[in-house]
């Protein structure tokens, strides 16, 4: 009786310990992701080759990125962004960002894995998610700042906005370069082909679904015809 209790207790303690460990790990990974955006060359190298990246942190940033996008659409001052609220669909907005993002990651992986890119899929995904950090860090405060700026001070807003985008693109570029251990020219080349690849993937998906619906309608009409005959 006593023994089982003590075992249970130790299990409890160790569970708490691992949870605390997990939290600590998450925090240090988070700190590492912040280090990455200011030191992209070191950061992304360590991310892929020292396994310092964390999938959980990557998920978090991706979620924050989507959240920022939605908050931006909903709460940016009307002076800077005039959204047709009556047509706004949050899920549509989220998926129109999420799907291209994932398709680009998949396309990049499927290309670079054939042309001796060193990155695994999780490395590519993590690097791309980390590259979104400046967007969150700058645009999330900008949502609030936009509500205290006037129309005449719009230049500040636009400058910060474009700065965040440029930073993101730069990070994505460096990230892919370091993860795959490519040179800049090669990265650029594969970046272009990634877009082509993404188009091919989208095409295949569309073909797949149209074939699926054709097949479905074929079997449905086959069944209907057969049921008429049999009656």
């Amino acid at each position, binding site marked *: 009786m006593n023994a089982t209790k003590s075992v249970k207790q130790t299990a409890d303690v160790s569970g708490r310990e691992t949870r605390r460990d997990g939290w600590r790990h998450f925090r240090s990974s988070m700190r590492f992701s912040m280090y990455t955006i200011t030191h992209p060359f070191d950061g992304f190298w360590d991310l892929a080759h020292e396994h310092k990246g964390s999938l959980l942190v990557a998920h978090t940033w991706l979620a924050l990125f989507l959240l920022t996008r939605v908050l931006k659409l909903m709460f940016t001052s*009307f*002076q800077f962004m*005039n959204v*047709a609220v*009556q*047509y706004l669909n949050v899920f549509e907005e989220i998926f129109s960002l999420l799907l291209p993002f994932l398709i680009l990651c998949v396309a990049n992986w499927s290309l670079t894995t054939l042309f001796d890119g060193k990155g695994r899929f999780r490395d590519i995904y993590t690097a791309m998610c980390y590259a979104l950090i400046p967007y969150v860090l700058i645009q999330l405060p900008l949502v609030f700042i936009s509500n205290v700026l*006037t*129309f*005449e001070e719009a230049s500040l807003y636009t400058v910060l906005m474009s700065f965040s985008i440029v930073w993101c693109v730069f990070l994505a570029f460096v990230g892919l370069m370091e993860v795959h251990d490519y040179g800049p020219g090669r990265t650029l080349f594969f970046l272009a082909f990634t877009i082509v690849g993404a188009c091919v993937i989208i095409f295949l998906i569309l073909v797949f679904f149209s074939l699926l619906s054709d097949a479905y309608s074929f079997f449905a009409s086959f069944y209907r015809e057969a049921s008429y005959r049999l009656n």
Partner: protein
Amino acid sequence: MRAFRKYLTILCCLLTLLSMAASAEGSLNMNHDGFSTSYTYGYDYWQDVIESPDAYRVLTVIDSLNLGLDENLEGIRMNRPQSLYVRNSSLYIVDTNNNRILQVECEKERYTLTRVIKEIQGCEISTFNHPYDVFVDADENIYVADTDNFRVVMVDKDLNYIKEFIKPTDTNFDQNLDFKPRKIVVDVAGRVYALVANINKGLVKYEADGTFSSFIGANQVTVSTFDYIWKMYFQTQAQRDASVAFVPTEYENIYIDKEGFIYATTTTFSEYDLLWDNAKPIRRINSIGNDILIKNDRYPPIGDLNWLEGDSTYFGPSKMTDITVLDNDIYIALDRVRGRMFGYDDQGVMLWAFGTRGNIEGAFNSPIAIEHMGYDLFVLDQNDSRVTVFTPTEYGSNVYAAINEYKDGRYEASADIWRKVLKQNSNYSLAFRGIGRSYLKQNQYEDAMEYFKMAHDQENYGRAFKLYRKDWIEKNIKWVFLVLIVLIVLWLIKQLRRKMQWEVIMHERNEVRKTNG
């Protein structure tokens, strides 16, 4: 077998009927192009059609019968009339194919034919040959664009010949062309501006004494970069000669406002040019021929914003066949494609659009001219040979009154009328803007912001918000400072604590070192 054939025939008939019904459904819907669902409508910020209460209603219809021109009354019916003109309380109808001009007196909603102008005195050619337009100046001198007599003739009010304006002998004018004046306007100084068929150099301008002065307001030739490169570098000389030359387009109609500016409409453009406002179907031309029409709205004044593609009598963008300018600078353009009228204020904001094609009252077969008397509108239909008289409804009068009050600087009164308008049409963004402006004048910034937001007026919203922000900071400056001070103190305390902790650690280390050493 016979039964089978019978069924087949019935089936065929049914199918034909069904397809006919389907196509008829399309044709019965008068608004299948232009996307409108009601007689009067407007567009919101997002280019969506917003149904609106009627701004104008049909007061009466003037046709040959009630002017006493019917065959039974030993008269001649109007035949393809082409133009209208209003001076004081007289309406002039140009009855083109009958070579005459009808003068109709308007008094207390009654319209009586007072004079048929057929012949003039003191001139070699004393009759008209297909006159297309008429203009009457303040002294009631009548100018007639006597098209197939190749002249613009000026007579006094008793129809005595004064002078005529004929084909310029200037070398600028192509002498091989017939001089066919289609539309004329005359400014206060007696200068005549004529729109001449087959002339694309602009309006022909005459001095008051009848001598040719110049062409003004020629349409700019617009060539896209792609077209230019294609023509210059990828076509042979033969191809270039065979293809259509880049020529400026002709105007469709002209109107002179009380300040002497000429409003002109054009209907020859490609529909893609409309969207970026390269086509400029409505223009206001100053004395040196530049377009000075004010366009301060999100969408330029092009009539319908949505249409089905195509170029015919039933599809495609609005084609403004005539325009008239009210005394408060509101201009109303007449679209011949869908028989609609589009009213714009002096900032280029659409007030309303109404009208449709058809044979009922308030609908048109082939509208050709529009004129105004006060706020009443006259619209001439050339196929039906009748003039429809429109008068503003209560809603329409309210809109006009609010605009006029605002123009006169009585913002309070204007806002009160706009509130009435909002009760009649709660989607009217001009009303929101008007009320917002009056709140802004009264220093009620928050209310102003709310209304400007509803009107999608970013600029005025920014103005109100700036003042609101200034007020807010002035009111809450002590709290702002308090929060700042508290934050600084907290930060200092934290620094101090950290420093003390550090000192304790260092002290302990020193102790340890001492005991060890």
